[in-house]
């Protein structure tokens, strides 16, 4: 239900990144969204289609990478996948004292910018 708020935050970040790189438009945004992030990829896509209107990402494609949940056991040290978002037990010993090491991400991984006229460098870099 809060996916529209998430998309607005995402678009504000994308606009800042575009401005910082002198780009006139955002072509593509890639997210990593874990099952424990509280965001639903399908709703994110629907909200993005609405929220992007009138921004520099109005024609941008949204790609959502859905990660899997991985836990590490505090008792036996085993690391592996969790059964479901509401069963985070250790896959080896079955204990409940585990730590989520993957699956709660809500990250912007990368954005692809359309270069403004006169810009000419290509390639990837970190902000």
């Amino acid at each position: 239900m809060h996916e529209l708020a998430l998309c607005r935050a995402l678009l504000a970040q994308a606009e800042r990144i575009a401005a910082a790189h002198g780009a006139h438009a955002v072509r593509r945004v890639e997210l990593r969204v874990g099952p424990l992030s509280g965001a639903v990829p399908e709703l994110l896509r629907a909200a993005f289609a609405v929220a992007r209107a009138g921004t520099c990402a109005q024609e941008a494609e949204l790609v959502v990478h859905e990660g899997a949940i991985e836990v590490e056991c505090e008792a036996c040290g085993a690391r592996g996948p969790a059964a479901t978002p509401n069963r985070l037990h250790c896959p080896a010993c079955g204990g409940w004292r585990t730590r989520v090491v993957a699956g709660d991400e809500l990250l912007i991984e990368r954005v692809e910018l359309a270069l403004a006229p006169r810009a000419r460098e290509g390639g990837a870099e970190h902000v």
Partner: protein
Amino acid sequence: MCEHCGCTVTGGNAHLLEAGTPGASRTVEVLEGLLAANDRAAAHNRAHLARHGVAAVNLMSAPGSGKTALLEATIEALAGELRIAVVEGDLATEKDAERIRARGVPAVQIATGTACHLDAHLVHRALHELDLAAVDLLLIENVGNLVCPAAFDLGQHRSVALVSVPEGDDKPAKYPVLFRAADLVLVSKCDLLGVLDGFDPAAVERHVRALASAAPVWRVSARTGEGLGRWCGWLRALVAEVHAGAAAATR
């Protein structure tokens, strides 16, 4: 034919071609949280609260789980001992803030309009309406919702999730993201346990443990006062901890 094969493109004029090409692009690696702006505002709130030695608790639950009733009972139980202020989040109306003010405690109502959760920016604005120098404990009642509030850090020191007896004992299994974010789970309206015998408090605890959470699961009733002593003790300990932190920071 040279305009087709590109043999006329040289190091000196390539940029002219690239700038006019619709395909010219750059990929930027970001690896930043989607809620980075909210998280920065939450950190700011936390620092602001710490400076004033104010302990903040974020209360989350479904609508109608008894958050406001618990706050009223808490205010009464801690009267004369801790200076409490309340931030109330609702889509509309001042009703909850009015209930709190009737108990003689300052309350700021945040009407979120259509937003289904509080965020750090909204809480920041509310903080500026309070005299934090005169507050020990800030209780933030989030919008009644078991999904969205979990995603937004407000700058609180602890989060509490309520599940009321009429709702059913499987709420933590159905809403794992929110219950996983709770430092304490309260089974509210526990005076109804004798009437609604389908509710098993032990099942709530099992579901919370399945989320790899060590959060205590305690029963409370605002009506009978059951469990209020333990809950108030937990709040006292938090206030003492935050005060000690503030004292250490100013030394």
